[in-house]
């Protein structure tokens, strides 16, 4: 992850740092954080894996079923729908915001418009609002007689008006679109950070070659922010996969199971259907999915550069 190996490596081999003599000292600084982290993040993850091997209602005794819960998931309609929905949500949570974020960041970088900071702040604003509040706002916007339909009817698109969250075809994109709204500001900011480090003379050179804004973007800007694109994708994909609050507050996974997602399935199975084992197996699959997608995305970034000796 890091590029700044720097001079720490080459200094005296024996002492951990200039001010640290004791070999144990680094561990003393690590210990408190590690203990809390291990006890309340790593250990529960291990327990989840263990729970997933049992059939348990959350009350009384449990039965060991091996990988039975996982086997059941393979032909569990609700679970498969949840995975499918999550993949669709990635488009809305990660890919669309990436496209929008690239556009906005590129514009902001070149812009020289007045009120640049204002635009940046306003577009980032959705990130700051609690998802519960976001859900309340959007649920109202999507209501059959809500603002969205009012606008559609006003411009003569009556046929498009519908109860967005109740329409089997529209509900998932409707939930996803909230994600686009949420994440575009974050992606924009990350990309802006990357673009701020591109040396200006690169652009000067391009301009001397007669490059317009579009060519400039593809030739210089885009390749330079590959690292930030990866970070943005990692963050937004994780957000897509754990869309719990929004689903809980807006649709409860409905209509039918049109908007259910793995994280909602975890909650529903554990605390509503009281099938803790199955819920844990979904949780573990969800975790593996997050890890796998992260490794995949990070690899896209690393492939050319690891050879170049990033570290």
């Amino acid at each position, binding site marked *: 992850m890091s590029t700044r190996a720097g001079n720490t490596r080459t200094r005296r081999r024996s002492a951990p*740092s*200039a001010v640290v003599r004791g070999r144990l000292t680094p561990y003393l600084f690590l210990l408190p954080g590690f203990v809390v982290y291990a006890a309340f993040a790593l250990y529960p993850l291990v327990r989840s894996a263990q729970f997933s091997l049992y059939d348990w209602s959350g009350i009384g005794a449990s039965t060991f079923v091996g990988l039975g819960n996982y086997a059941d998931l393979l032909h569990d309609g609700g679970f498969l729908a949840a995975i499918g929905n999550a993949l669709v949500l990635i488009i809305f949570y990660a890919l669309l915001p990436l496209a929008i974020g690239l556009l906005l960041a590129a514009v902001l970088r070149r812009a020289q418009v007045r009120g640049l900071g204002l635009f*940046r702040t306003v577009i980032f604003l959705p990130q700051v609002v609690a998802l519960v509040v976001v859900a309340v706002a959007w649920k109202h916007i999507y209501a059959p007689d809500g603002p969205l339909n009012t606008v559609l009817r006003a411009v003569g698109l009556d046929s498009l008006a519908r109860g967005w969250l109740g329409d089997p075809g529209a509900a998932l994109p409707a939930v996803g679109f909230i994600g686009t709204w949420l994440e575009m500001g974050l992606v924009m*900011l990350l990309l802006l950070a990357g673009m701020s480090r591109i040396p200006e003379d690169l652009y000067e050179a391009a301009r001397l070659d007669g490059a317009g804004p579009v060519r400039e973007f593809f030739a210089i800007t885009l390749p330079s922010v590959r690292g930030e694109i990866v970070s943005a994708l990692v963050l937004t994909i994780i957000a897509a996969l754990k869309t719990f609050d929004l689903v809980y507050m807006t649709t409860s996974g409905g209509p039918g199971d049109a908007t259910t997602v793995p994280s909602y399935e975890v909650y529903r199975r554990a605390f509503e259907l009281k099938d803790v084992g199955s819920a844990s197996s979904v*949780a573990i699959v969800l*975790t593996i999915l997050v890890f796998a997608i992260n490794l995949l995305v990070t690899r896209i970034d690393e492939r050319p550069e690891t050879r170049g000796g990033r570290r």
Partner: protein
Amino acid sequence: MRVSPAERTMNYVVLAAFAVFALFPVVTILRDAFSPRIGVSGGIHPENLVDAWRIGGFGASLGNSLVVALIVVVVSVALSLGTGYAFGTMRFPGSRVLFPLFLLGLMIPAEAIVIPLFYDLRTVGLTDTYAAIALPQIAQSIAFGTFWMRAQFRALPQSLVEASALDGAGPLRTLVRILVPASRPAIVTLVVLVGLWTWNEFLIALVMTPSGRHRTAPLGLANFQGQYTADNALLAAGAIIVAAPMLILFLVLQRHFIRGMIDGASKE
């Protein structure tokens, strides 16, 4: 750099369009919050906020949120300073295995740990306490804080620590007197980020406080939605109450915060 007038106009249009898009839901909910309730005549109704506050018991839930956010921010930032300090400035065996272990925490979704957390903490009688809501969030924040502070400390010039060594300072004093003051913007950003996440956290607060005694503000709103969905004005007023503290904090700190984010992101 010069930009043609045509392009500048386009830039304005694009930015304005997305700014409107970003603001639209916020404006909708603000408008609803001051609109008349069912069976009440038109006009502006700021008393909705007062009624929502009272009926929804938001005083208590905002108080709970504040306590939880304070605990999580103080503890996790303090502990992350330690871990970030170790990883960022010291060489020791095992660091190349331990650091990725912390990074793993960035990817563990709350959903993956909430079930055993609930049942195991219940066994030891910790559910329905501030600790039950705070500890898992501290753990997740440490993962991020470690990553964040390590990057920050690595980015500082090595000479700072060396000069401190010449002054005869020990490791703790170097951290507190030299490195922390030099990292203030990054720490402020970390504080705001962790505070924001904690304030907005839903699932952990939902599951870990079944008795409802330590219900945080987002839960209070979810609960309020169940009771008052018929009265959109009141619900919107409740939503404003819950969102307001973080919105205000963000708007006040936005310059530092956004700069901190940009700096921090480019430190990776």
